[in-house]
């Protein structure tokens, strides 16, 4: 590392500001700013992007064009508004508009002239020096995620939009709007080199024992006791599409899932996919050294445009092993020009069927429905004349046809919404793929704008599996990861942050465990016996909402009853009372439904740590243990994990997170609850893009003691802490 020693500092992002009074013009590209570019100890591995890296670089001209277009787009509403409100009888207004638009266009030009980026020795840096010189550096060791997206416009120029996120909560990302695609590889390589130099990726503030041990994970060859076993392991991995493993590596849209759909799926199989990655990590020449790489990377060609169900079906559905010849037949695929995950292991690919399922089971359909309803209401205001007549005519028509007409209209609206949802989902998730590459998780998705998100596994702070009621009925679920940084920045065509950290948009309950194990063996997410905290405490859950609903209902009914009897003045008041009561009762009922679900689902399990003796053995089911005996690889799961199931609204979710994320333990009770031996416990979590707390609405003191002791580090690996406490 250089003398700058950036990774040692605490913050994720370093910032320097200074006035430009010293006459440091933007053109004098920071000779003084450079901390002598001495050769690094880690050795910048592949200077993939050519000569420009390492020195301050101006964005390509296409970036200027992009910013100008964005500025014009931003100016359109303003111009329209001004022109519409001051009708064109006053020419000076027109000139004002021209001036303002010109000013709006100057800003991008100035920005383009003054902004530089650099891949320095210590980190990625962005320097803005228009009025205030502001330089941000994200050290390679602090990179939490890299998001790459390529809108069609940028694809024309071979450019990408690249966002480097750091752990800073405030302004911790650097967005490079249009940079050469090769830059991504350069950053990745440097990041990995930095991680290797430090020894582990995480100098995390929480300071759990390095969770990203992926790089330091035992490679299979090293872990195997005998060479023969090692050979067998390689063979087993190379012929991966055997039984359920094919299921993991490629989601065949034919849907011939060999695993029986079971309510509590047993982890049936998990190919030690990490081993490939570990191999690739330890041997930089990977492509030829490890045949395992070729197999998986080859069998799944990386699409650069759109969804490719065809390539998903390339993998034979049956147990026929993919021969190395077939695998090597598409070596060019991994060298395609678009942003791609490179060599790695395909852990999950969403077929078009999956995306459609996602779209149709998305309950935000209802939100859309409400929006549409609002629009429908607004139509009267916007188009007072003919449109209103047309609409009311249509409404009358529907009403005239009675129930059938209403039903048809309803179905029509639903179909429209489903179509909208499908299009939106396809735009976002088409060609969704999740790759495991060494210590990184790489997610590629998007129809028009391909987006590649690279997340070092060690930065993942939580894993959440969510089932909304519809998906629960269909045995589907959605998996998201919580990070310690926000992804993606501000740009992009879909700015909804909710889907940024989606790992698996939709997946069958029967496949989720195996897939997650392939992706995140460190997290070891699987069904475990849970301690249900709400058992027998239904009263505690339901009293408050029930009381609210009852009071509301009483007020509402009372108001309605009194409305008829009262005089004119009183009737209005009673009507108000009835409305207020009705609303209260409705809210109470919704609350009750949520509480009921929580009562049913609230549970926790303190997951076993890897104590010194070893860890969780990742292996096949016992039934075919002979076949998979060689696949057993000891992968230590992350220490101090907790699994919590709860209900969030009407959706049920399973959260797995780590103790280091728990910031405090807040227990609360009341005298009457205490008499029943019950309290409430909340553990606020420090996770961005993820759950903000673990909440147990009502649990017994002993459970609370247990959780508090776990959170308090007190017991360490010991489980018998409540005994010592008592």
């Amino acid at each position, binding site marked *: 590392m250089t003398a700058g020693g950036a990774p040692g500092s605490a913050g994720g992002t370093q910032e320097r500001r200074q006035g430009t009074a010293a006459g440091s013009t933007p053109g004098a590209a920071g000779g003084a700013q450079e901390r002598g570019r001495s050769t690094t100890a880690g050795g910048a591995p592949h200077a993939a992007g050519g000569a420009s890296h390492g020195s301050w670089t101006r964005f390509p001209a296409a970036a200027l064009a992009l910013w100008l277009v964005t500025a014009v787009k931003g100016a359109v509403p303003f111009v329209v508004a001004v022109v519409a409100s001051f009708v064109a009888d006053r020419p000076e207004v027109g000139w004002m508009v021209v001036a303002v638009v010109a000013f709006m266009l100057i800003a991008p030009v100035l920005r383009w002239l003054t902004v530089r980026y650099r891949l320095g020795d210590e980190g990625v840096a962005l320097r803005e020096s228009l009025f205030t010189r502001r330089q941000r550096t994200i050290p390679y060791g602090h990179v939490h995620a890299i998001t790459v997206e390529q809108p069609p416009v940028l694809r024309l120029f071979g450019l990408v939009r690249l966002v480097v996120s750091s752990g800073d909560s405030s302004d911790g990302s650097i967005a490079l709007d249009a940079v050469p695609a090769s830059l991504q590889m350069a950053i990745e390589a440097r990041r990995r080199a930095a991680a290797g130099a430090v020894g582990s990726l995480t100098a995390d503030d929480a*300071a759990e024992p390095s969770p990203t041990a992926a790089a330091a994970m035992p490679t299979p060859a090293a872990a195997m006791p005998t060479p023969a076993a090692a050979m067998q392991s390689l063979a087993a991995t190379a012929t991966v599409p055997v039984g359920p493993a094919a299921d993991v590596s490629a989601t065949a849209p034919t849907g011939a899932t060999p695993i029986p759909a079971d309510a509590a799926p047993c982890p049936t199989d998990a190919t030690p996919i990490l081993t490939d990655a570990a191999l690739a990590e330890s041997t930089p020449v990977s492509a030829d050294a490890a045949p395992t790489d070729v197999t998986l990377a080859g069998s799944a060609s990386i699409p650069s445009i759109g969804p490719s169900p065809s390539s998903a079906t390339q993998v034979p559905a049956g147990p026929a092993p993919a021969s190395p010849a077939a695998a090597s037949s598409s070596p060019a695929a991994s060298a395609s020009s678009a942003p791609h995950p490179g060599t790695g292991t395909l852990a999950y690919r969403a077929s078009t069927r999956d995306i459609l399922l996602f779209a149709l089971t998305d309950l935000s359909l209802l939100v859309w429905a409400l929006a549409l309803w609002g629009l429908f209401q607004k139509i009267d205001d916007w188009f007072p004349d003919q449109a209103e007549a047309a609409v009311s005519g249509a409404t009358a028509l529907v009403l005239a046809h009675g129930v059938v007409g209403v039903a048809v209209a309803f179905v029509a609206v639903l179909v429209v919404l489903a179509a909208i949802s499908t299009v939106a989902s396809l735009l976002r998730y088409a060609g969704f793929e999740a790759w495991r590459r060494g210590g990184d998780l790489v997610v590629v998705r998007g129809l028009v704008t391909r987006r590649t998100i690279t997340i070092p596994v060690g930065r993942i702070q939580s894993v959440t599996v969510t089932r909304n009621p519809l998906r629960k009925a269909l045995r589907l679920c959605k998996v998201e990861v919580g990070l310690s940084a926000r992804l993606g920045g501000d740009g992009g065509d879909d700015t909804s942050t909710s889907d940024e950290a989606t790992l698996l948009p939709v997946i069958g309950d029967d496949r989720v465990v195996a897939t997650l194990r392939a992706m995140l063996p460190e997290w070891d997410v699987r069904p*475990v*016996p*849970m*301690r249900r905290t709400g058992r027998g405490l239904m009263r505690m859950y339901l009293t408050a909402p029930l009381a609210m609903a009852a009071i509301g209902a009483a007020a509402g009914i009372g108001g309605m009853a009194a409305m008829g009897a009262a005089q004119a003045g009183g009737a*209005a*008041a*009673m*009507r*108000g*009372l009835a409305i*207020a009561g009705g609303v209260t009762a409705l809210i109470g009922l919704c609350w009750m439904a949520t509480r009921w679900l929580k009562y049913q689902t609230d549970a*926790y*399990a*303190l*997951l*076993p740590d890897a104590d010194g003796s*070893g860890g*969780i*053995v990742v*292996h096949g089911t*016992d039934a075919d*243990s002979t076949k998979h005996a060689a696949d057993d690889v000891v992968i230590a799961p992350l220490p101090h994990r907790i699994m919590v199931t709860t209900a969030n609204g009407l959706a049920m979710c399973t959260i797995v997170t780590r103790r280091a994320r*728990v*910031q*405090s*333990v*807040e*227990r*609360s*009770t*009341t*005298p009457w609850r*205490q008499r029943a*031996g019950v*309290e409430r416990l909340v553990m*606020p*979590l*420090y996770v961005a893009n993820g759950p*903000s707390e673990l909440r147990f609405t009502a649990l*017994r*003191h*002993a*459970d*609370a*003691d*247990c959780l*508090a002791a776990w*959170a*308090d*580090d*007190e017991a360490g690996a010991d*489980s*018998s*802490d*409540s*005994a010592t*406490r*008592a």
Partner: protein
Amino acid sequence: MDRETSGMRRADADGACADADNRGGYVWDRAGRDEREWQRPPERITRAWMVQGLIMAAALAAAAVVTAAVCQINGWWNFWTVALAVVLAVLAVAALASIPVSNRYDYEFNQFSIGERDVRIRKGWLFRSMTTVPYNRVQHVDTKQGPVLRAFGLMTVQVHTAVGEHEIEGLDVDQAHRVVELIAARAREAKEDL
């Protein structure tokens, strides 16, 4: 195979670490069965609370009166404005009535403990809460002093974590500074240990 099942069993044991015969919850006992040293703010905090309660009640009452006056002058009386005024008035009375009760019992329960590994703060009598903040989660510590507390020479200590803050209310100014020093030092130690 063996290891995995043992892992499962361990999880089970962990999950069931709260035995049926152990009722638990001793942290809630007023005597405090855990051997921790609990401190409490000086007794004059009850007077500060009383002043705060009176101010709150007065503000609510004033709001109710203003609502009533405005409605009366403009003739805006209807169900909703009546409801608003009534609710405000009821809240004002409740605030006034709860002052002696909460002063007496809240003070009883209002304690904090600066332990070896964490800070614990107990609050409330009717709605009791106990917050545990481990030192290695403490981001920073600072003090706060509103006008009422200043009049009584009291000071509030705020312990900040990455996602929120927790208050130790109404300490002597000297005591508050000592507490800040102590927590900061222990937090530093805890971070260095890691």
